[in-house]
């Protein structure tokens, strides 16, 4: 992908992420999250991960954030009056974040090399991912489906009305 295009997308993604974290209105935060997830899906596409980009939009941007918005609407959340914590919390959080940022930047200084020159045939395609998922990663796949079942049952059990 063109570096200029990437820079524009990256700036938009960071702006959307900052909206999620800093905006006082939870609905605007949720929309910032949708924008971030959608822009990340575009980044995935530029990295030749087509199926993952589609799954990101279908599952994450299209279902998980809808769930967030449902909860916000059901609880009728107003604009946060006390959105961020007190000064002690802000100072500690700022210091911790700076430390984290420094740690990550130090990790990035190592050169990881560029994109692999020769990609295997069918990289990023559905058939390739599915083949791996059903042969090598079969056990995690079945466990993930079990996990989803448990999550569904748990969410319904927790959220239903008890008369």
């Amino acid at each position: 992908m063109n570096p200029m295009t990437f820079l524009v997308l990256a700036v938009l993604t960071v702006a959307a992420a900052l909206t999620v974290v800093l905006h006082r209105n939870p609905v605007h935060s949720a929309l910032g999250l949708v924008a971030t997830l959608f822009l990340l899906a575009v980044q995935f596409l530029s990295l030749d991960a087509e199926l993952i980009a589609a799954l990101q939009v279908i599952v994450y941007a299209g279902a998980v954030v809808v769930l967030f918005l449902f909860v916000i609407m059901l609880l009728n959340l107003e604009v946060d009056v006390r959105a961020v914590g007190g000064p002690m919390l802000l100072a500690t959080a700022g210091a911790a974040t700076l430390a984290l940022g420094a740690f990550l930047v130090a990790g990035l200084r190592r050169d990881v090399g560029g994109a692999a020159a020769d990609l295997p045939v069918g990289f990023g395609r559905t058939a390739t991912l599915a083949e791996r998922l059903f042969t090598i990663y079969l056990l995690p796949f079945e466990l993930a489906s079990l996990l989803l079942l448990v999550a569904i049952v748990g969410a319904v059990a927790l959220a239903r009305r008890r008369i």
Partner: protein
Amino acid sequence: MVADAVIAAVEALFIILLMLQVVALGVFFERKVSAVVQDRVGANRAAIFGVAALGLVNTLIADPIKFLLKEDVRIAGADRLLHALAPWVALLPALIAFAVVPFGDVLEIGDRIVNLQAAELDIGILFVLATTSLGVYGVILGGWASNNRWSLLGAVRGSAQMISYEVAMGLALVGVVLSYNTLDLQEMARQQGALLWGWLPAWGILYQPLAFVIFFTAGIAESKRIPFDLPESESELVSGFFTEYSGAKHLMFMMTDFVEVALVAALVTTLFFGGWQVPYLYRDGFHFPWGSGIGLPSLVVTILQVTAFMLKVVCFTWLQTMIRWTLPRFRYDQLMRLGWQGLLPLALVNVLASAAIILVLRRP
């Protein structure tokens, strides 16, 4: 490179304009088919110099002008940004979904063979699912940003209905993908050109009849048309989630309704009824099963196939309009029960049965 981009842009423009014709036709059908069903004449008053053109002037010229010239109401106490954003978020994903719908086989320009599909994606049908998932936000934002409890009620109902029927739609598509062995819609359309037993076109409806019923029902529910229009419910919630919209934004929400009708019709034709396939028509002309054939230049073949696609889409648009004006509306709990306790188990049974049959038939 540039030529590829230009061709893709032209194809995208062509399919969108084509589908906007279907939208216009859908609007006209709404007025006139409903009139025929209800034994009345329908809108025919607006006329230019006395020419009313069977109500076309009224529906396609006077109505849009009226909508565009109406005042855009600003709501007190509502979120202005979200209120303005919602119609776009509803309309754009529905239009974008047409990028993967194939409207013809190939077009030969000189020595270049152009695939008549705006975006050749490996993930084809998943792109449509992704865009319909994004369309839910238009409903949520429209209802939430209107500062009106009926709008909010319509929005919550509408979005819950949409995400419920998305599940059934996706599972119905799993059966379809199993039987075609591909996700790309153009590949699916091409595979339906094969002939069963030498004479029967192998259209998807023969392989996946149950998936057709589930997908069609879920598609009508996704676009919130009657009998699934409780989120909009013109007689109960005023206009549901787009009560507080007027003028051009109202027009955009209504357009979304018809664009999704066209989308469901286009998908149903591509997946189950051969897409652009005309029976016995190949790239070099007709080859009838009884031996004779008619040779045709490739441009004529392409035009025939695009016309066939349009005719089939118009057919299913008409079918959805007929369904709208015949059936009463579902109550909300009936609607949810149908989605989760009716269509979802049926779709699962369809996946199991399809997989079992394919496994048996393809065993070497």
